[in-house]
């Protein structure tokens, strides 16, 4: 039981990080039909922005802020205007290809210009163990969980309770109608790109101490984001959160109780079942398609 709780908490922590990445992913899809195959690399990269800032002597907290700011510029603004906007009129597939190329580009750039070795990354709090119901839980998992939950709550508040957030949701749900109602649609689309960049940067800060900062990190993280988004529901923010958490817990429990060799396969099997049985995802709405 104790080990079960341990696995559950660390699974929740990983799942919360997956959820952050998946939420950004679904936001981009909703507002601009962008399937970002480079989403994993978007999480890998901010850690290196932070490391570069620290190499110049900035303290960790300042480096994190710099990292988030640079992410907003590079992964938000530059990504939207340089990669996405010129591709939109060509439809979904060319943009998918472009983002696959972007993922390759970012990965190789980090490998060639920074390092191909895994880099140690500073932790948010000193590692210590917390005892709950006889289970030993690392303080790191708890902090990751707390930050991720705070981010999710903050974002939900932004999206549901503020005027800005409602305008963003309106843009996501029906751009034409939103424009008629006076929502500045273009700016809202840009904001979702910025929000995605911030979420990726936060996820990067949370996950890099665990996985170490390495140029290949994006491969597994990007996959996790897709899976979480599809399992939960591509067109719902809370679906992506649910998907992320399910994935994180499943990942840890299956590795411990079923087979560590095939731990990567279980989420995929769930994915295929979900797509075949309930293609809109667990919490998703059915999208009405025009012929």
């Amino acid at each position: 039981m104790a080990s079960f709780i341990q696995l559950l908490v660390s699974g929740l922590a990983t799942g919360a990080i997956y959820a952050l990445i998946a939420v950004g992913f679904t936001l981009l899809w909703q507002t601009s039909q962008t399937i970002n195959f480079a989403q994993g690399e978007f999480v890998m990269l901010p850690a290196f922005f932070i490391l570069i800032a620290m190499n110049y002597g900035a303290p960790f907290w300042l480096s994190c802020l710099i990292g988030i700011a640079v992410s907003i510029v590079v992964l938000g603004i530059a990504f939207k205007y340089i990669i996405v906007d010129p591709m939109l009129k060509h439809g979904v597939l060319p943009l998918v290809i472009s983002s696959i190329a972007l993922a390759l580009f970012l990965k190789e750039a980090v490998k060639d210009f920074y390092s191909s070795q895994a880099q140690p990354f500073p932790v948010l709090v000193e590692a210590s163990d917390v005892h709950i119901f006889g289970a030993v839980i690392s303080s790191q998992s708890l902090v990751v969980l707390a930050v991720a939950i705070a981010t999710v709550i903050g974002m939900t508040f932004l999206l549901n309770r503020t005027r800005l957030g409602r305008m963003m949701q309106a843009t996501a749900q029906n751009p034409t109608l939103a424009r008629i109602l006076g929502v500045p649609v273009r700016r809202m689309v840009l904001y979702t790109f910025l929000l995605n960049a911030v979420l990726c940067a936060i996820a990067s800060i949370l996950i890099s101490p665990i996985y170490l900062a390495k140029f290949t990190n994006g491969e597994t993280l990007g996959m996790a984001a897709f899976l979480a988004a599809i399992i939960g529901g591509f067109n719902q923010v809370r679906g992506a959160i649910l998907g992320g958490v399910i994935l994180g817990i499943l990942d840890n429990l299956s590795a411990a109780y079923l087979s560590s060799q095939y731990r990567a396969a279980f989420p995929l099997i769930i994915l295929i079942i979900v797509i075949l049985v309930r293609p809109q995802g667990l919490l998703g709405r059915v999208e009405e398609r025009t012929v």
Partner: protein
Amino acid sequence: MNRAATISIAFAAAGAVIAPFMLKPFGIFLISMWAVLTIAAIGLNLTLGYAGQVSMAQGAFVGIGAYTLALLTQAGVPYPIAFAASGILCFIIGWGLGYPALRVQHHYLAFVTLAFTTIVFLLLRNEEWLTGGIYGVNAIARPVFFGWSTGKAMDYYFFCLGVLTVIAFAVWWMLRSPWGRAFVALRENPVRALSLGLDTRRYTLMAFAIGSSLGGFAGALFASLVQFIEPASFALNRSFDLLLMVIVGGSGYFMGPFVGALVAVLLPEWMRVTEGYYLIIYAALIMVMMPLAPYGIVGLIERGYKALTVKRKPPAPMLTPERTAP
């Protein structure tokens, strides 16, 4: 097909026959690889370019084909039977993978096929009793036909080129048949295709199965070409590479895969001078190309050719913009 295209294809074919006589062994290896990858890309072009079904599983089918050939020939099965088995097995599995395509479209399908590729990779890596795990399979045989051994690089190249030619003609014939028209209808407007009485269900499965079987044949040739296969050769990257080949060459164009595979094989060699930066440059080129020419190199050539030939014709007097403008 117009004359200019016929002439350039004839020249390219002659080039493919003459090339090995002027190349060193490594060069022959490269053009053999080109022939092999072209077959896989033709298969993906059928699924993606003609039938419009996004598949990220072609690399996995190349893997299944390669392992089938390697394991069967090592178990003593004659080469032709093992070769056929590679394609047939991929046909059956591809047919099965087509079922999700009946339910979901576009990006969902991309992810199902992506998941399939990863699962195949995990099976190849983990089932050591069958596949040798990360150590792969060694010493894969090259075929001998009626005393003609393809053990040497040049002989094997001609074997690959022969298979490519047979497959290219078969696919070309198929695309001109009602089947090919049905595939295009599936891509352009599935609802209308259905309402015109096409069995879209069967054609979707067919597009997947045939495309996958070509992946399997390519895998069989690949195994004998490199003579050592390991799971990492057939991970997600291989599927991405094949997808990029089809798109870069021109998806939905018959000659697209030939050009795309040529670029993918030759570019790394030409860019040796850039040392490790090849992949960065390749990725950047694709990102630049996509917005400018999403229809690929062959599409670009065709449009350029059309633009040139149309310009030479005198415009019809009644339709000049000066007259029609108010």
